[in-house]
């Protein structure tokens, strides 16, 4: 359906997401909701009405095939050959049943073959009944067909429908026969012009065996060309009725039960094809919609307001301090040009002891100008923020230089430090993008 163009399904997706919890359930729910919106369900209901009407029409057809010929034969009012009545009643339906059984065998071994039966005819007839056609009827039909084919259900579903129709038709035939035999006098004989008497004997023997076993009265002998007698006709009539029941109705009922059983069994296993590209796409979309609730929300972090720089005591000379902070082991030391401009150099890797020692040293001689060197590849964090804040409290001014250990390295992101600094409370810290900037900063602060 979506081949023609994607449907706007955002709200249906959301509803299905909340109502169902399994993949299959969600996708079916989405289909149901979309079907309701697009009027597919109304169409489906119309199609069902159509199916009933078509069923009725086909029932009449089946009845005519089975019973019509018989009533014509019987209705002539003259003497009637019992064997002829038998063939007229059972011939076409038996042939149809035989064809169906053959088809069923063939299609059990190949995917391609599909028997045409009354059931299939009914479905296509239902879709064509004027006045009941909705805009999506054909799509629905195609979908139903494809589904039945995919699941190899077609044979059994259509078979069940067709057997049900035939069985009903035979029921009607039986009733008709009963009525006719009850209230009309027929003269049933074994008349023939060219056939041998033994032929009828054999015929009666074979067809009468099963009814006889089940206790139905069967004519004891075949009296060819005998004048029609009331007793003889009665026996033949009972034999005909038994035949209609046993050879017409019974096989159909058995076949119907088999089809229904298979249908029930298969449809309980009916699931969506989870390997279908469309299915997988929907699954992925549902997965992406899974809610991600915030369980511990972000609060405005109460920032410890920096006390600001410590003013230089009067008479104190300008001193510069170089602090290498959290630099990796490979770090050989600050660039020589910067070292030359610094009065003191501290290299700390960041442990608490080192930090406290450094702060102690700075506090002992307050009012220095500090240049902090950090790794450009490292990610700025609040540990660094706390450290810088503490440095600021002990110094007169402070600058930060993210140092690239390996200039070619793509992991170096000095700009990340600049952005972070601008976003933090440490706006008073000067950012030096290059060692050149840092040298300039040191020179100005040395005065």
């Amino acid at each position, binding site marked *: 359906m979506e081949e023609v163009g994607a449907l706007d399904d955002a709200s249906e997706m959301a509803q299905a997401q909340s109502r169902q919890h399994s993949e299959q359930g969600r996708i079916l729910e989405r289909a149901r909701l979309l079907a309701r919106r697009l009027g597919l369900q109304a169409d489906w209901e119309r199609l069902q009405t159509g199916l009933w009407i078509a069923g009725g029409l086909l029932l009449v057809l089946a009845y005519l095939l089975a019973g019509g010929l018989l009533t014509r034969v019987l209705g002539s009012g003259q003497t009637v050959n019992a064997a002829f009545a038998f063939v007229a009643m059972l011939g076409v339906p038996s042939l149809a049943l035989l064809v169906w059984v053959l088809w069923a065998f063939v299609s059990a071994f190949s995917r391609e073959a599909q028997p045409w039966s009354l059931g299939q005819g009914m479905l296509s007839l239902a879709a064509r009944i004027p006045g009941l056609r909705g805009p999506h009827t054909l799509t629905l039909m195609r979908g139903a067909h494809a589904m039945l084919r995919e699941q190899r259900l077609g044979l059994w579903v259509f078979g069940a429908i067709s057997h049900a129709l035939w069985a009903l038709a035979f029921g009607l035939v039986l009733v008709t026969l009963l009525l006719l035999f009850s209230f009309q006098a027929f003269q049933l004989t074994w008349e023939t012009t060219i056939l041998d008497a033994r032929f009828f004997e054999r015929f009666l023997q074979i067809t009468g065996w099963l009814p006889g076993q089940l206790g139905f009265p069967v004519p004891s002998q075949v009296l060819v060309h005998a004048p029609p007698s009331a007793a003889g006709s009665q026996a033949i009539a009972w034999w005909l009725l038994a035949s209609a029941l046993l050879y017409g109705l019974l096989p159909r009922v058995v076949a119907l039960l088999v089809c229904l059983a298979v249908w029930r069994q298969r449809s309980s296993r009916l699931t969506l094809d989870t390997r*279908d590209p469309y299915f997988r796409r929907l699954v992925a979309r549902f997965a992406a919609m899974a809610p991600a609730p*915030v369980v511990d929300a972000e609060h405005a972090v*109460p920032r410890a307001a920096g006390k600001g720089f410590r003013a230089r005591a009067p008479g104190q000379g300008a001193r510069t301090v170089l602090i290498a902070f959290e630099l990796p082991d490979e770090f050989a030391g600050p660039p020589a040009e910067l070292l030359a401009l610094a009065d003191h150099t501290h290299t700390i890797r960041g442990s*608490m002891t080192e930090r406290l020692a450094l702060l102690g040293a700075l506090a002992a001689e307050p009012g220095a100008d500090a240049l902090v060197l950090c790794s450009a590849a490292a990610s700025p964090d609040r540990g660094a923020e706390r450290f810088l804040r503490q440095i600021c409290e002990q110094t007169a001014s402070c600058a930060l230089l993210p140092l690239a250990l390996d200039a070619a390295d793509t992991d170096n992101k000095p700009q990340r430090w600049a952005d*972070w600094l601008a976003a933090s409370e440490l706006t008073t810290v000067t950012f030096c993008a290059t060692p050149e900037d840092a040298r300039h900063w040191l020179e100005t602060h040395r005065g």
Partner: protein
Amino acid sequence: MADAAKSQDPIDIAVVGHTNAGKTSLLRTLTRQARFGEVADRPGTTRHVQAIELEVDGQTLVRYFDTPGLEDSVALQYHLKQLPETLTPPQRVRALLDGPEARGVFEQEAKVLRQMLAADAAIYVIDCREPLLPKHRSEIEVLNTCARPIMPVLNFVRSANSREGEWREALAGHGLHAAVLFDAVAPFVGAERQLYEDLSVLMRQHKTTLQTVLLDLERQAVERRAASAQRVADTLISAAAMRREIAPDTLADARAKAAFVQTFRDELVTSVRRCVHDVLQMHGFAPDDATLDVAPWTSDRWASDLFNPETLATVGRLLGKGAAAGAAVGFTLDLALAGLSLGAATALGAAIGGALSQGWGQAPRMLRNKLMGVEELTLDNSVLVLLADNLVHLCQVVQARGHAAQDTIALRIAPSSSYRQALLELLEPLQQARAHPQWEQRPGQPGDHSRRREALGHALAQKINALLDAAPHPPVV
């Protein structure tokens, strides 16, 4: 087992780590939700704790908690040490959480610790490009204080600056011996499996549940693979079925002919683009996903390759002898038509060949066209091969969730490769489609779902599925 899982609460796993270590990226990979959380190359992108559930059959089995980074671990550890020594480590953490600093300077860290204490286990994500510093040691120690099983995940191990050895040593020094290797940029095949297996070693009591998760993940992977093979098969059939009649006067006018050819190519490109989109969607990727090297597909670079005369000539040569290759080479001489076959004669030949195997349905149309001088444009086999290779490659990349092997097509279908053989075998079923123009799936029109079309699609999909194994895999370091 299902009952046991049903009666259990989901396993809660806190995902922790230093800021910017790739916690959210890892979760995106694990849950296949390309849009989960916010990922940015900026410290502290995640500031709140977000839960994300892993469902199997509608049942939540695992719940992940994405936490903010542990940024100030040095001070935090120092603070924890200040607390009364009579307390056990987890009690100290609780004392800290109850104290004023949990809402003050350690607000962010408190969130992480709170989740750690509430969780069954933690996944500790490490950016192993970072040098090991005191702050990291503090981090490990603080996490250990919570006394929860911890599964370290070493992220970015494929980076040139990876310090995997250094980190492993440090972790082992803190009693964390197992570690899962991961790379958000170039994930490993099977890293996910290993993660769940290691987690079930860490949490023996949840072994069955984790096993269920693993089985479900595998089922889904198999299904996704089959589905993408099916999608590719349908696209290839549609491409092979493409057939456009070109009137004699259009053919005579060079400009009209060029426009016609361009339209034809554009239609193919549109159809392939939809396939690329669908395959990405099936695997839970957004087309602009940064963790995946799908740019060659999403940027339509493949489209220009598809009709590049040089590439086509290479492919044509590699396809070897045979009528199909002969036709391809013959027609690529006309550069304007590179990759396309034109001509009633070829088409008629193909139709007769096709008619012999598939019935005479196409022959009358061919005959009519022949008489009226109408010619037909179809795609060359070399284009189909290129297209198949391209899409198979895409499927592999999205399945490995990693980078593509940067081999050229010439290398991939080198004369000795089994991949080439498998690729060529796709052509045979595709020839069937050539005789059925109605099998082309055009946008805005319902597709053809005849039994034969479906059967061919399934058969081809199986071949492509097998091809996904035959093709050269992305490199595994």
